[in-house]
């Protein structure tokens, strides 16, 4: 072969290799995007991985899509928060609401081929209560769950639990196949009766979860896609890049800083308020800080914060200023209470003087970089302006443990706004998790008893009265309800679920 021919041949071969590689790269880039597959495949950006697929230890909120893909719940909730049938078609309480009877569907099969029956449901309920999961307390009032026949389950309770039905529409109501109970893979291989099955071969645990449509699902109306991929983005930059690159159809966001850029990429921002941010004034009896037993000191703390400025600085203005802990959707909510303690440093100083603390007060608080160092500096500055000195402790990884031990009288931590009873059990009742000093007050206890045992009308009024009482007595010092934002692309519609971090899976649909 002529040397020139050899050289030409080499160049041609090199060019051919380059072309193949280039085609491969381009081809891959075009076919792997999420948006163009909408209708067939839904790709979700998730901000957390599932901690487990075991129903008994399951989480909810940001993990709910994983669970709703593979499991059914006993009840469901519509976008207005109203309860709807799930695996149970009928539910009925006895007169004192200590016995709940559920009537189940008789046409549901687990993906292992076995039929779903009352015995399986009863076992799941008991396992959830005893499973040491994050929400095991949802069923702490349940003395037993018994299958009275193949399609009837009777739940008996120590005392009425106004949130039980809601819990049964969430993780407490997930039903897993009994065949999975003894499986060594129970935490990573779910066996449920849900609309999809986890494709364990295509799934990379902690990074990407692939679900295929369950062809035998009893409620095909809730299967809007043939395949659902849930990719986990723990880093805001990676999530932003995935959105900009069209790699997801819908995603929850880690913060509001990138929302404008996501909107500029053609995504729609769907806002939701889930939490309240501010101070929890835990030591209301003055156990470690006697000044906090004085309601005027607690009210002074409320007046000391410029809530609009805090919202603008900490959350870039995404959210609503408030001074109440109950959410807007609650019967207890009173719009006028959102401005009960408008920023008034002069009034704060006056109240401190009236309380006998004209020379100021010193309070101990824990701080953690996980909640943003700037916020802790702002707290210190705003309170210093009215004469309250904040001294921070650094509990490190023990932040929540130290707060709940309790070691501090006051804490800053954004907390969730669940349903009324859930919120009462979480923040207000003498045994509530975030009432670590077990503050008890006859008026508060009276309202709680009515919420628990009264008619719906009585309960709603008691919740509203309780809310006003807590605001007047400054049990907390809320600043605002921060906005969470769920973004969707042009091919995807979504209906947000009040009280849940992300929409329910069946409310994410291809745009018509």
């Amino acid at each position, binding site marked *: 072969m002529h040397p020139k021919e050899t050289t030409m041949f080499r160049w041609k071969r090199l060019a051919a290799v380059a072309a193949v*590689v280039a*085609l*491969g*790269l*381009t*081809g*891959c*880039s075009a076919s*792997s*995007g999420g948006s163009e597959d909408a209708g067939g495949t839904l790709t979700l950006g998730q901000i957390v*991985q*599932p*901690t*487990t*697929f*075991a129903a008994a230890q399951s*989480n909810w909120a940001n993990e709910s899509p994983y669970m709703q893909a593979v499991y059914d719940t006993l009840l469901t909730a519509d976008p207005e928060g109203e309860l709807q049938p799930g695996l149970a078609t009928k539910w009925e309480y006895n007169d004192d609401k200590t016995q709940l009877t559920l009537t189940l569907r008789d046409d549901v099969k687990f993906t292992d081929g076995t039929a779903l029956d009352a015995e399986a449901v009863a076992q799941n309920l008991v396992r959830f209560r005893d499973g*040491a*999961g*994050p*929400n*095991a*307390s949802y069923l*702490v009032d349940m003395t037993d769950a018994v299958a009275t026949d193949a399609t009837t389950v009777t739940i008996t309770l120590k005392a009425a639990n106004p949130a039980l039905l809601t819990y049964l529409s969430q993780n407490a109501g997930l039903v897993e196949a009994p065949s999975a109970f003894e499986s060594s893979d*129970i*935490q*990573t291989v779910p066996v449920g009766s849900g609309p999809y099955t986890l494709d364990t071969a295509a799934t*990379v*645990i*902690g*990074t*990407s979860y692939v679900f295929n449509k369950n062809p035998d699902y009893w409620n095909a109306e809730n299967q809007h896609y043939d395949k659902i991929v849930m*990719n*986990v*983005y*723990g*880093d805001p*930059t*990676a999530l932003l*890049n*995935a959105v*900009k*690159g069209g*790699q997801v159809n819908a995603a929850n966001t880690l913060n509001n800083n990138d929302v404008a850029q996501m909107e500029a990429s053609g995504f729609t921002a769907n806002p939701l308020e889930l939490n309240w941010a501010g101070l929890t004034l835990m030591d209301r009896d003055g156990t470690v800080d006697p000044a906090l037993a004085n309601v005027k000191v607690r009210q002074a703390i409320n007046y000391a914060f410029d809530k609009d400025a805090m919202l603008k600085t900490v959350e870039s203005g995404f959210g609503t200023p408030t001074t109440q802990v109950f959410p807007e959707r609650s019967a207890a909510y009173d719009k006028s209470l959102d401005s009960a303690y408008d920023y008034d440093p002069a009034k704060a100083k006056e109240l401190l003087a009236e309380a006998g603390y004209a020379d100021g007060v010193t309070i101990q608080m824990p701080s953690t970089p996980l909640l943003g160092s700037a916020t802790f500096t702002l707290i210190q500055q705003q309170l210093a302006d009215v004469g309250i000195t904040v001294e921070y402790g650094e*509990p*490190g*990884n*023990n*932040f*929540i*443990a130290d707060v*709940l031990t309790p070691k501090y009288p006051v804490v800053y*931590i954004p*907390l*969730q706004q669940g349903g009324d009873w859930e919120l009462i059990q*979480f923040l207000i009742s003498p045994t509530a*998790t*975030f009432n670590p000093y077990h503050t008890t007050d006859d008026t508060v206890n009276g309202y709680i008893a009515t919420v628990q045992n009264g008619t719906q009308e009585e309960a709603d009024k008691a919740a509203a009265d309780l809310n006003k009482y807590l605001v007047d007595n400054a049990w907390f010092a809320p600043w605002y309800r921060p906005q969470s934002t769920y973004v969707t692309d042009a091919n995807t519609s979504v209906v947000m679920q009040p009280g849940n971090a992300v929409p329910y899976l069946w409310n994410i649909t291809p745009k018509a």
Partner: protein
Amino acid sequence: MLRFILRRLASGVVLIVVISTIAFGLLYVGGGDIARRILGQTATAETVAQKTEQLGLNRPLYEQFVDWVSHAVVGDFGTSWFTGQEVIQAISSRVAVTLSLVIGATLISAIVAVLLGVWAARRRGWPDRLVQVISVLGFAIPGFLIALGLVIVFAINLGWFKPTGFVQFATSPSGWLSSITLPVIALAIGGIAGVTQQIRGSVIDALRQDYVRTLRSRGLSANRVIYKHVLRNAGGPALAVLAVQFVGLLGGAVIVEQVFAIPGLGQVAVSATNQGDIPLVMGLVVVTAIIVVVVNLVIDILQGFLNPKVRLS
């Protein structure tokens, strides 16, 4: 040579034992209330206590350590507290991902650094100054900025690559190549800067040696002198730098894997450490230590191949 390798392996085992012990102590001492971190703020005190007992965290530290060691020596690193996945499975599925990034970046670093270093050493003048400037820039610009810049330009604006994610080689070789190209470049740039300087310096030194003049006087071409003789002598120090770079790239992969959402060891190391997933972190510590020991052993053997004096010492 066999004794040399055995000696190195023995010291590697000691190193792994020491590192594991220190890591275990640090994790447990600074771990805080682990059960509370697993269950979150909504869990009641009773549930937290139940979880603590379930995980055996209420036992004395030495008892927990002995338990961990007795399982670890037979390859059982337990189960992740946050995903329920077996640690060994979680790590094995990710080792190949990280190694493909780090090996790719090391190879590119080595090739580009040799070309640039030799070019600078032979030509001196402006090429030398240009290479020096490039090296300083490669050192100075943080890896995550390079990664972000690459994503914005080549993935988002030009659309040539996917901004995030990883495709397994078995699934699609071209997809795999596409998914690792930008991360590998982001990782390699820092490495190129370091190794280029080393090659340049070593080649300049070698070119001044008498044997080079002798080789030239025997009529060997300049390329043959450089690539067959000079580089072999200059290769020792460069290999040492490459070994350090390789280990450093394992650390650099943490950031790059986060930015590109690649399911490698770095990504899982960040999430496991933030969460306090001690079984997974301990597994990662041991595996990373093994990788470092093996890489150093391979480099030592290569050094021995390049320079017999090393074998004797």
